[in-house]
């Protein structure tokens, strides 16, 4: 019996030795930056690294909590995340259901659907900016010149509400193919005999969707919602490139770090965001484990 225990311990040591390289890697590229960021958040940090950071305690956090722009940015980010995650997942689900059916040219159609997701963001942003350009944009040509919905070209990317609608539309259009691919893979894994049995029992398409399809793809949908929420919470590139009227958290963070060069405050923002996102992840994890 003691010999067995020694063997187990030795195996455990060996196992630990095997995972040690990965642990060191994780510590150096995740844990160290995380801790360093927390330290930075308590300092006033100069752009010049030769100047020593000055310890200022909780000042950055106090400034953050009393900054109206930060609160506004946080609320705007919640709104952006909720709407974009809901729309991109719903559109992805609908297209996946459509593409799961057999029809002529399905292969080409599936390839075309994923185009917005694989194209570089910067080229897509330019296309959208040209589409909504006041002088030669197709959106104004249709809505102003042809359909006469507006008397003059609206300030698409300058009006706070219009620009919010457009960045939501852009994100939905760009990322729904990701949801589509994940859901389609889950749909194809559903056993066909379940539908046959349901049909024999007299269940229609609507009933089959609620009783078979949705429960079968629910884990995938759950993962999609969590991942998309985390990614969109830190969204920066396309929103920043399209407009300056939607200061979501990623944009606010960038402006703080690289426009006003307040690295200490920027670090405090990322710590705050980390806490928010971790709370969300832990909450969802608990919900999922209960299921």
């Amino acid at each position, binding site marked *: 019996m003691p010999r067995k225990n020694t063997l187990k311990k030795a195996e455990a040591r060996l196992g630990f*030795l095997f995972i040690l390289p990965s642990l060191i890697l994780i510590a150096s590229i995740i844990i160290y930056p995380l801790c360093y960021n927390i330290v930075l958040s308590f300092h006033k940090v100069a752009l010049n*690294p*030769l100047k020593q950071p000055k310890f200022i305690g909780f000042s950055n956090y106090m400034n953050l909590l009393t900054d109206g722009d930060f609160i506004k940015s946080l609320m705007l980010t919640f709104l952006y995340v909720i709407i974009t995650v809901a729309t991109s997942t719903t559109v992805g689900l609908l297209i996946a259901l459509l593409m799961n059916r057999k029809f002529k040219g399905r292969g080409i159609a599936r390839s075309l659907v994923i185009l917005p997701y694989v194209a570089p963001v910067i080229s897509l942003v330019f296309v959208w900016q040209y589409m909504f350009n*006041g*002088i030669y944009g197709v959106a104004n040509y249709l809505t102003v010149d042809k359909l006469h919905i507006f008397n003059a070209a609206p*300030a698409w*990317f*300058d009006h706070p509400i219009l620009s919010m609608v457009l960045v939501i539309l852009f994100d939905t259009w760009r990322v729904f193919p990701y949801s589509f691919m994940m859901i389609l893979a889950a749909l194809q894994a559903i056993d066909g005999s379940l539908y046959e049995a349901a049909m024999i029992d007299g269940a229609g398409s609507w009933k089959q969707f609620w009783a078979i399809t949705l429960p079968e793809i629910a884990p995938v949908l759950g993962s999609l919602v969590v991942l998309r929420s985390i990614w969109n919470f830190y969204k920066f590139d396309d929103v920043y490139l399209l407009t300056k009227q939607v200061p979501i958290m990623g944009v606010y963070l960038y402006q703080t770090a*690289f426009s*006003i060069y307040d690295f200490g405050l920027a670090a405090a923002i990322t710590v705050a965001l980390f806490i928010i996102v971790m709370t969300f992840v832990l909450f969802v994890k608990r919900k999922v484990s209960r299921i």
Partner: protein
Amino acid sequence: MKKRILSSVIALVMLLSLSLTGCSTTPSTTPTTTPEATVEPAKTITIEFIHSQPEEERVTAIQKNIDEFMKTNPGIVVEQVPVPEDSYMTKLTTLIASKQLPAIMESNIDWGRLLNSEGVIDAKAHTEVINTKGKDAFFKGALEILQAPDSSDYIGVPVSGWVAGIWYNKALFTEKGLEAPTTWDNILKAAKTLNDPAKKKYGIVFATEESDFTEQTFTQIALSNNAELFDADGKPRFNSPEMKEAIQFYKELYKYSPQGSNGVTQVKDAFVGGNAAMGIYSTYIMGALYEQGMADKIGFAVPENKSAAGFGMLTTLAVSNMVSAEEREAAKKFIGFMLEKQSNIAWLHMSPGGANPVLKEIAADEQYKSNELLKAFGETSSKVPEAFNELKMLGFQDGESHPKMGNITAKLVIPKALNAILVQNANIDKEIEKAQKEMEQIVNE
């Protein structure tokens, strides 16, 4: 037992290789020693030159200059690091924070002011290069405006520069009997007369977005009204009557411009595409106008109200203070080389018309003037470099630069206020006061 030993060895090798890779900070450059190679090779200094000219033909032109330099300076290796202009300052900021700033960086007046206030450039090295060339070799205004606010040194060595003004369609002005847009009255009258938005024709187009392009454009309007940004004690006076008048004029002009946040692309497209009769832009528009065969159809004017405001920007080369003494000397040598005739003309001809000479001898040089584009613009292109003698900028008063002007520009205080007033239709007085307070805060930091 054997298996355990083998596994332990594998794990140890993995761990060692990982840690050794992680510890390596520089690629090994030690040459393999052979019994014959007993003489130590001459020490080679490698310096990096970061710039914002990533276009392929410009990278090739710069590389030609570098190759030429390295031929005559065998102990120095110069490596160029091209970065797109949009992300240039972000890249520099990251490099500063990680103490990895290259020895030489392309800069300009705005960036130079900021880098100087952050204490990351070697202003003395710039002065040494300028003194070696001789101060008289440069246009007077070009050097004055680069004087560091806290010393008698320079925030960069000028290698070229651009001038901004109002470009206008001469045929349209002649057709309507309008005078050249040299005064506020002429500009406004022309903008009103030539504006026909129903036909997608606008009187004028200029920068309104939240970027430094808007500050540069507005500077010309403000300074033509003698609206300085600081008083004699260095306190901000964005709320002065002259400044408010300039903002009101800018807003009035906006009525006859394409609506929205217009930036470089929108202004250039609208003017070159014939949708705007006037466009406020730098000499960098000359290339596009030349390509469209419009060189002889376009006029250039500098706006004037209480005084003429020749606004421009100098492109400089700056030396980092994060490098060794040898790298510093090598950087100085390379910048000195860039001021020599052949290399300077090659730099200017990368964007003829846009980049203009800051050295008097080059401005008068036949080889420089022989470029097809410069010949096509005739008198306009030959007059441009003279503007560097009387360069004006916000924050540069009585021969001195305000030490916090770079920070005000970097934080986009003026463009944000103008965008709010023009595009968002915000209350002019409230926005002026908001910007004034923000500037006071920056100055008092």
